[in-house]
């Protein structure tokens, strides 16, 4: 008796609807510069950068299990990178944004093997030390403007419409890009390696997964993403300053979004960003009370519902909007011993 | 009144059921042996009695009182002591400190560091050594001694001969004979059938979470035991 023929399937019909819906949403968002107000566009830039940041933080923390409290190092480097490449070297700011991400990667490259010697909570603080070092270096060098920072002149000099609309579209591109980046990463071999590492690092290593390299790639990708995000933020604000660019608040926002929305999924950070943004719009005038509230909510959810909002949805209704998982599908029904016959594409087993 | 009684106990590890409605009774002063192949549920049985595992259903009575609601760290004070699988002595503590900590939550009684070292003279020269530097046999003696320091009424021994050289196993069992002589109730889990049958008053064979055979060793033929062990 031969084994039944099967194939590995990724998506269902629902996923096709999600894809169509997604494209429509992005198209609508891309049309905003034509008819929306400037202040609204600038607010949306903040939304997009938070969304991208959450994806990058989640890539490191939710998928690779590396909780970083220091991604602000690369956000700040991206911001200063924009100034360096746009103002000092003189390239067009829109190009400089992506090169700034490259700058972040260059710094991340020697850092990674160093902090990978630490684990868990000590790794987290280690990333914080790195961020502090970068901040101190930048703040102490007169060439980068020291403590008072710099204006991003190359961006400020662009015609205002180009700048506003361009920044908006760039931010949208970065947000969508971050989602697609994580999505394709998870479908790749690296994604499989990450899941294995997250479940049981030792077992993954004995199965031949190069754990160090997998973590390194993820760390570098996250650094790149954060660098680009930092550059976009700098373009939006036109001013860079060590205290703000390297602020721990970036980590706080990202962590809050992922904790509420859900670790280890693409949908989670999207939902988390929406919720966080809504809270931001309504409560931000309260300053410290707002941050305090964020902290309390994060602690409560992390303790009581560690999988976040999306985790709850997954548990309850087993919904996955992004087809990153692999399912076993039988091509023809096995010789029936029981009267129940399965359809030609009945899913038999799910593996993520 | 029996020292220990299990009534229809079910134990799960997540979705996997390790024990299926297991019932048994251990009388005072008895040496009760549980044998069986790996995965039979024997270690789970001891861990559940010691409180490291909770039964999904059924009851465990110690001296006639149900113990289910007591966490593991309370059971030592009640008189139940477990020598866990793999010895698990405290590696950064010395031999003497390991014995001392055995008495931490235990009861008053005859067992002291001196009397334990009379039972296991091989420990005497090792008193100040760190437990991590001991050999397997020495660690096993230490683990048993540590459990005795709590002056238990019921001593649970989990696979004490595992990974030890035959010479060492012989010495451990000699000590066990002496233990039996003091009137301690012992529930011992073993894969090594030969040795344990020499000290046991009663034996139960476990197969895939159920008792497949039980009785006095003298009443059971070796064919019956082999059949029950392997489930043929």
């Amino acid at each position, binding site marked *: 008796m031969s084994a039944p023929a099967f194939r590995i399937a990724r998506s269902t019909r629902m996923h096709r609807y999600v894809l169509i819906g997604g494209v429509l949403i992005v198209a609508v968002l891309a049309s905003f510069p034509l008819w929306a107000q400037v202040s609204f566009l600038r607010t949306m830039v903040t939304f997009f950068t938070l969304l991208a940041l959450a994806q990058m933080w989640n890539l490191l923390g939710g998928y690779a299990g590396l*909780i970083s*409290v220091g991604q602000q190092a690369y956000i700040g480097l991206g911001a200063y990178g924009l100034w360096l490449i746009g103002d000092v070297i003189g390239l067009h700011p829109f190009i400089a944004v992506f090169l700034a991400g490259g700058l972040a990667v260059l710094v991340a490259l020697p850092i990674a093997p*160093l*902090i990978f010697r*630490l*684990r*868990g*909570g*000590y790794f*987290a*603080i280690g990333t*914080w*030390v790195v961020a*502090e*070092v970068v901040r*101190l*270096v930048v*703040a*102490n060098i007169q060439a980068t403007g020291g403590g008072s920072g710099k204006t991003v002149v190359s961006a400020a000099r662009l015609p205002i419409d180009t700048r506003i609309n361009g920044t908006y579209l760039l931010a949208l591109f970065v947000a969508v890009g971050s989602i697609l980046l994580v999505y394709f990463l998870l479908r790749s071999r690296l994604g499989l390696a990450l899941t294995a590492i997250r479940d049981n690092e030792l077992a993954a290593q004995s199965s031949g997964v190069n754990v160090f390299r997998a973590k390194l790639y993820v760390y570098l990708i996250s650094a790149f993403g954060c660098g680009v995000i930092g550059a976009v933020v700098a373009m939006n604000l036109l001013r860079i300053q060590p205290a703000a660019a390297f602020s*721990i608040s970036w980590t*706080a926002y990202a*962590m809050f979004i992922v*904790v509420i929305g859900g670790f280890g999924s693409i949908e989670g950070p999207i939902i988390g960003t929406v919720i966080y943004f809504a809270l931001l719009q309504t409560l931000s005038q309260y300053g*410290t*009370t707002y*941050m*305090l509230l*964020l*902290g*309390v909510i*994060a*602690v409560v959810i*992390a*303790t009581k519902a*560690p999988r976040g909002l999306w985790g709850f949805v997954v548990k309850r209704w087993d919904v996955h909007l992004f087809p990153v998982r692999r399912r076993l599908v039988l091509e023809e029904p096995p010789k029936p011993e029981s009267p129940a016959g399965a359809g030609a594409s009945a899913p038999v087993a799910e593996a993520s | 009144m029996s020292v220990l009684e299990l009534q229809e106990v079910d134990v799960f590890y997540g979705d996997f059921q390790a024990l299926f409605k297991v019932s048994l009774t251990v009388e005072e002063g008895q040496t009760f042996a549980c044998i069986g192949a790996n995965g039979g549920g024997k270690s789970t049985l001891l861990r559940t009695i010691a409180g*490291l595992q909770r039964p999904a259903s059924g009851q465990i009575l110690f001296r006639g009182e149900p113990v289910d609601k007591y*966490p*593991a*760290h*309370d059971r*030592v004070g009640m008189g139940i*002591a*477990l020598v*866990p699988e793999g010895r*698990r*002595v*405290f*590696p*950064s*503590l010395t031999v003497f*400190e390991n014995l*001392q*900590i*055995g008495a*931490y*939550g*235990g009861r008053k009684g005859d067992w002291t560091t001196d009397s334990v070292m009379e039972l296991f003279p091989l420990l005497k020269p090792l008193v100040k050594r760190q437990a991590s530097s001991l050999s397997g046999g020495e660690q096993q003696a230490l683990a048993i001694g*540590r*459990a005795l320091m*709590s002056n238990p009424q019921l001593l649970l021994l989990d696979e004490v001969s595992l990974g030890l050289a035959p010479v060492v196993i012989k010495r451990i069992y000699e000590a066990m004979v002496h233990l039996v002589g003091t009137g301690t109730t012992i529930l011992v889990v073993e894969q090594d059938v030969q040795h344990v049958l020499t000290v046991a008053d009663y034996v139960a064979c476990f197969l895939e979470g159920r008792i497949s055979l039980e009785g006095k060793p003298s009443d059971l033929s070796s064919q019956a035991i082999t059949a029950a062990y392997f489930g043929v």
Partner: protein
Amino acid sequence: MDWVNVAIQGVLLGGLYALFATGLALVFGVMRMVNLAHGDLGILAAFVALFLFQSLHLGVMWSGLVTIAIMFVVGYLLQRGLLNFTLGSDDTRPIVVTFGLSIIIQNGLIMWFSADSQGLDAGRIENISIRINDQLSIGWFPLLVFVTSIVVIALLQTFLNRTKLGRAFRATSDDREAAELMGIDNRHIYGLAMAIALAIVALAGILLAVRTTFDPTQGSFRLIFAFEAVIMGGMGSIWGTLIGAIVLGLSQTLGSQAFGSGWGLLVGHLVFLTVLAVRPSGFFAKTVTA
């Protein structure tokens, strides 16, 4: 000779850092947990002492002692009421929860006390120096802090090595489940470990408050310095933490002297990163993996 003075200052500064670091090392040793709010809890203690001093007009000493007692209780309740529930196979939860705690404490302090710098006035003791000779003098208070750190560490080490409860701590650290079998309730042990850690960091925070100014956001720095001291000193060794703290203090003061005051902290961080690169398990590691 200025360098010698600076070096002495660095060593004495290490004493303060060691006090911040000891609690962090203890908690990690007993329950493998890293408390990201550790520094903030020390600063919280400083504010509590300030409150007692300013509003209830207790003397500095009494404010300090009462604060330490309060933080001991807070530590026990915090561990048993919240942090014990975050422990488990998932490494990420304690990090997220303690980070959230850090945010809560910092913002709570800003709300209650404002973001301004504060100081705890202990009177003349802060400024007295001991003159050794014409060029050498040692601050009386920094010396006191350094000696205190040695005393505290010695007491803690004695507690761990010579007492029944200390043995229980070490057993729990070695093998939590086997310790349960000995009658040790690990929830209680964890609570006590956190209580002791917070009492020590409270002492550190109060001494800091007397020695210099402090504000609600200082906690992050204290955490980083404590962490660097622990890593450099080596996992599992409390005396090693003191050495790590001294190395850090020296790096900072010598760095300030050599390159200017803005660079002192940076030199400290760079020394830490170098040690991490060259000798990742620290100077006196007892356990090889973090």
